[in-house]
């Protein structure tokens, strides 16, 4: 016993336990509990009945839910753009130019700003008679107001842009950490061999950033499918179902309409979709990178 108390394993468990306890209460337990819940018509406020797989059957016939899944999958399109732009930004700010820290800080400001505040600011920028429309008209780009958030062909892409704009700084910082882990002598050796700047990026930077790319791709993929705040504040899923995402629909069914059993079933289906996509990303890219030890 005393031997175990002195072991590295005990120390590790001691450090992990508080976090694991919180995870158990707020993450693992709700996930496990949602499985039996999905088999009932639980609504909190009235009697609960077992309904078997009815909720799942209803879900696959529910046009709005299918649209919300589709919209969430479309939202995933921001993932590659997010990676490309944040890597480019990281490369740009990974230099020793005087004042570069100001740029890093500036790019990071949207990350630390509350999403609700960001969404409200964008609603002012993009609403009727908005600043963006005014500037575009002055520049002669458009001749009349564009309804950025109430035009079904635009609204989802506008939301995707806002999500990307807010996330860029965060992923840039992660990639910056990755870039600063790459040994400089690799670049120097390549330069001696006459490699151009482009070849340095393609043959050294990107291969050695692969673990970071995998990690950022995974978390941005999950975030894209779970997107909620900006959609809730800016469009509430409208116009019609143009920006109805799976998280928002689950929220509406559960918290607004008290169909918690059904919402649990929807949550499990969306969870399965995220799991499948994550596995695909994992299989796609597991090698490469720098061993920091």
């Amino acid at each position, binding site marked *: 016993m005393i031997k175990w108390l002195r072991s590295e394993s005990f120390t590790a468990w001691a450090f992990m336990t508080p976090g694991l306890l919180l995870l158990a209460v707020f993450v693992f337990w709700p996930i496990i509990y949602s499985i039996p819940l999905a088999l009932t018509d639980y609504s909190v*406020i009235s009697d609960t009945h077992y309904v078997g797989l009815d909720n799942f059957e209803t879900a696959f016939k529910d046009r709005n839910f299918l649209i919300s899944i589709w919209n969430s999958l479309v939202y995933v399109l921001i993932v590659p753009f997010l990676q490309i732009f944040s890597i480019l930004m990281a490369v740009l700010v990974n230099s020793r130019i005087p004042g570069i820290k100001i740029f890093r800080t500036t790019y990071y400001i949207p990350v630390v700003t509350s999403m609700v505040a960001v969404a409200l600011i964008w609603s002012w920028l993009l609403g009727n008679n908005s600043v963006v429309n005014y500037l575009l008209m002055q520049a002669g780009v458009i001749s009349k107001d564009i309804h950025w958030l109430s035009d*079904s062909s635009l609204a989802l892409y506008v939301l995707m842009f806002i999500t990307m704009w807010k996330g860029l700084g965060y992923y840039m910082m992660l990639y910056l950490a990755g870039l600063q882990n790459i040994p400089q002598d690799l670049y120097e050796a390549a330069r001696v061999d006459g490699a151009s700047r482009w070849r340095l990026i393609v043959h050294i930077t990107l291969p050695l950033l692969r673990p970071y790319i995998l990690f950022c791709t995974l978390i941005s993929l999950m975030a894209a499918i779970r997107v909620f705040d900006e959609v809730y504040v800016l469009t509430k899923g*409208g*116009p*019609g*179902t143009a920006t*109805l995402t799976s998280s928002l629909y689950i929220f509406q069914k559960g*918290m607004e*309409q*008290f169909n918690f059993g059904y919402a649990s079933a929807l949550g499990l289906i969306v969870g399965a979709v995220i799991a499948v996509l994550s596995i695909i990303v994992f299989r796609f890219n597991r090698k490469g990178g720098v061993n920091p030890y």
Partner: protein
Amino acid sequence: MTKKAKGRLRLLVSMLALVVLLSSCGGGGSKPENVNGGKVTLQFWTIALQPTFTPYFNRVIADYEEKNPNVKIDWKDYPYDAVTNKLLTSIASGSSPDVVNLNTEFASQMGSKGAVVDMNEHLSPEEKAAYFDGIYNSTVINGKAYALPWYTGTEVLYMNTKLVKAAGLDPAHPPKTREELSEWGRQVNRKIGKAGYAQQLVSKLFAIDGIPILNKEKTAAAFNTPEAVTMIDNLKKQMEDGVVLKEDAEFSQQVKYYAGEQVAFELAGPTFINFIKTAAPDVYKNTIAVPVPTGKADVRLSNTMDLVVPTKSAHVDEAVKFAVFLTNAESQTAFSKAANTLPSTKDSIKDPYFTQSDQSLEAQAKVVSAQSLDKATDYMVGVPNAKDVNSAVTRAFQNIILNGTDTKQTLTALEQEVNDILKQ
């Protein structure tokens, strides 16, 4: 099994054991009896009324406790956005409040789930007759009244006289019908390039033109009619023509557009005044309030706050008695004077406070809206699962008006969706 796999399995089993252990510790507590030495404590919840109206509530609660020495009122106030979650978690944990302030939509939704007490079982005919019929009936579903109406508001038309005059219109002769309002909006748009007003796309639009949302039995949708097609297409055209802003504008957006003088009119209740006064004092000075132009149905729609008693309350009789006291004519008149709201009781509006105006915007709006209370009806009258229905209707309106889908086809699909909701 490898050592690594065994380790992972052990970790997983440990985690599951921990989860089960933790879950056995929480929830499911027994319902608190809230009885102290023969005294019943009632949990009374309101929405966003503290601290502004604390003196009124302290007074009315003290008065009630004096008249009912066996009852103690524990008053709590929650923000609008938090009350739903708070109520759900309290009911789930077995500590339901006894009297709760909710809006009609939420009260109807809870009533549909059988979660609130039927007031018809507890009130005498005289007590029921004290309220305006149209407002009392708003939460009646299948003959059961799921709430007592409390403070209310009916819409009036706010007009920016500066913009209206600039468009060559006379504010002294305001529009009386929706058609006239539309013409005014058209002229405002033509002459000064502003829109007439901003509009939220909700089921209320059916009610304004007298199109029933559901059939009399509340068992099926009844809005799929040629009149509805005409009404929606008309609104769509108004948005195309700039009479109405092309957007599904929530109240906060409407305030913003009116404060920024992007629209000349606003159709809203009395609370709108406070927002404008704060956001745009200059616009407030140029604003007048006139009776709201009516649609084909010639009704005034109310927007009511109710009191409900959850079925899980441990003291239903005492709770109903307190809710009746709080919503009687005397209490409501006093609250209206404190809060600049309208009462839902017939006797209250006989008070001079609701008939005399000092010509301030607040007084104009109050008098104008109080005089229309006898015609007032809530637009979600007795709609089961009101939140689901509203959400579906809004989506369909947005699809037709903003996304350009076919009106008739979309209404037919909506009819099916609403019928499915009613079967739940």
